[in-house]
């Protein structure tokens, strides 16, 4: 139990207001566990509720069903044991880059001296290569720099769990690549557990240990967890040439283009016997290893030949 830092059991989210008093079920029966130090990304089409899952982990949203444990404690509201990087940087515009980080650091360690707070914040801003922009206000920073301040702020809290909600969604492709490198750098130095939402398949492969693939909503669920069996440290420029990269990529693309729709709850209702209500029979999404599968298929083909 203790090697899992996050445990989500039977999460569901639904809204009233469907036809004839039915509930609109966004997702249901979501179960997953995150190991300490794991980098998890979650991919799915818009409307599958992946941002809601992240907000539930952050404590900013409440599930309609199920519960989440972080470090064995039931989540009931936001807290300083988790840090969030929001989609649109969410820096306080009247504070400089440094002050935005010290603001968070002071909240976490109110007893620290000003010097200590400043030193701690500067260290994380330096990790995000922002040493030259400490005194600049957000409006004077580029989109990429703002997002890096947001990342530095989240990492500076030194929480066991980091939640990243499409942090690079609003950035252009070149800036995005540069920040991915920064994120890898910071994550490698800190080795915290990360749960991240993304739309970008290459980004997910570059960063993740496992990738959660979600079916389309309504009634979305996590169909499988793709294991990214590629060696670390990974480099953005080299990873695409690595053996197996395209096995993973093709598997995910195939899922997003075809299977996410075929497996969708709206198209194929979950049979009654699949709906589990007791805690002891949680069904976790199966780990899938496209590289190993491809290898197996290859050897099988050779053998039969």
């Amino acid at each position, binding site marked *: 139990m203790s090697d899992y830092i996050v445990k989500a059991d039977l999460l569901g989210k639904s809204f009233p207001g469907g036809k004839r008093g039915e509930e609109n079920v966004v997702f249901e029966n979501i179960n997953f566990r995150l190991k300490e130090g794991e980098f998890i990304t979650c991919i799915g089409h818009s409307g599958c509720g992946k941002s809601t899952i992240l907000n539930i982990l952050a404590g900013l949203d409440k599930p309609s069903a199920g519960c989440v444990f972080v470090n064995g404690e039931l989540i009931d509201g*936001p807290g300083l044991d988790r840090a969030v990087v929001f989609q649109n940087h969410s820096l306080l515009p009247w504070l400089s880059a440094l002050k935005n980080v010290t603001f968070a650091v002071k909240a976490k360690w109110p007893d620290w001296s000003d010097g200590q707070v400043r030193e701690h914040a500067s260290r994380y801003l330096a990790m995000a290569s922002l040493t030259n922009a400490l005194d600049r206000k957000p409006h004077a920073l580029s989109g990429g720099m703002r997002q890096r301040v947001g990342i530095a702020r989240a990492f500076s809290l030194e929480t066991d769990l980091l939640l990243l909600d499409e942090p690079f969604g609003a950035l252009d492709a070149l800036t995005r690549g540069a920040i991915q490198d920064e994120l890898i750098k910071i994550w490698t130095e800190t080795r915290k557990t990360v749960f991240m939402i993304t739309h970008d398949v290459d980004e997910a492969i570059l960063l993740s240990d496992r990738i959660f693939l979600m079916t389309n909503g309504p009634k979305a669920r996590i169909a499988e967890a793709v294991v990214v069996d590629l060696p670390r440290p990974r480099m953005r420029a080299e990873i695409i040439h690595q053996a197996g990269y395209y096995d993973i990529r093709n598997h995910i693309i195939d899922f997003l283009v075809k299977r996410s729709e075929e497996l969708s709850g709206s198209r194929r209702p979950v049979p009654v016997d699949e709906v589990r209500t007791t805690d002891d029979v949680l069904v976790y999404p199966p780990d899938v290893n496209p590289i190993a599968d491809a290898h197996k298929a290859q050897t099988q083909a050779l053998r039969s030949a």
Partner: protein
Amino acid sequence: MTMTMTVRNVQAALLSIALLIAFLGVWHFSTTSADHVASATRLSDDQVQTLVGKGMAKADIEAYAKQGLSFPQLDQIAGLGLTRAEIDAAGGIQSFGFTTGGAAEEAETGFPSPAQVWREASEQIFDPFYDRGPNDKGIGIQLQYSLARVLTGFVLAILVAVPLGFLIGMSPLWSAAINPYVQVLKPISPLAWLPVALYLIKDAEKASVFVIFICSVWPMLINTAFGVAGVKGDWLNIARTLELSKLKTAFRVILPAAAPTILTGMRISIGIAWLVIVAAEMVIGGVGVGYFVWNEWNGLNLASMIFAIVVIGLVGLILDLALGQAMRLVEYKE
């Protein structure tokens, strides 16, 4: 870009000065030309007949009229029963207490020229704090009283409007509950409160402060509520994830986020307060720029009155600039 802006600023400044000169010119000529052209009093035939009937020679009447004496004055002279030659022998018309020419003319048309206003102004500016009894105090003293009333009422309004605005802005329930009262009370002219205040408080000074309070409170209340309600959800989420207390969230996140809107409300309020104090002081009397203007009008010291009006405008401008400067301190770009 900055070049064209500077050029335009210079052009605007030159145009402003030209407009001022044109205005002063028109003012000057319309008030002083009366002195030259119409210095001779024009008497109607009836008036001449009346004077002749009182025993005044027609030639004398014409001569006096040329000196610029008015009909009432001529009527009085006629009452003396002396011919013009006899009066001149006795030391001239002035020795009987009659003024001739421009001074008499001024009393008739009344409106002072820019030069006269300037003379009055320079006297007042160099001695703004003189005090010669209850109805004759310098403009400086009048301003002190008015500003004290405005600032007291304004600060009281801040103390009420900002916390209440926070409550309304943060709670849709309170917002809906208080909104009808705000909507009804807001359009009431602040001066309408003056009798109520005078009756309840029984003190003119405090009543005027109350009027300033009541006129300042609405813009601040509405803007504070609007600013607080408009704080971005993302910023509040940050406060939540950092487990900030309600009080800390209010002071560290909501207040700085809403500050520009709140200060806009304050800026509107101080402008209205300065408008209202002049009217209120005209009603309550005693001391203050509003009363000063009214008192000068009653005494027909029009030059002094015009000077006071200009001062009211300038002080209003300074108050607005001060709030504008304060706004700049809390403004932020997103």
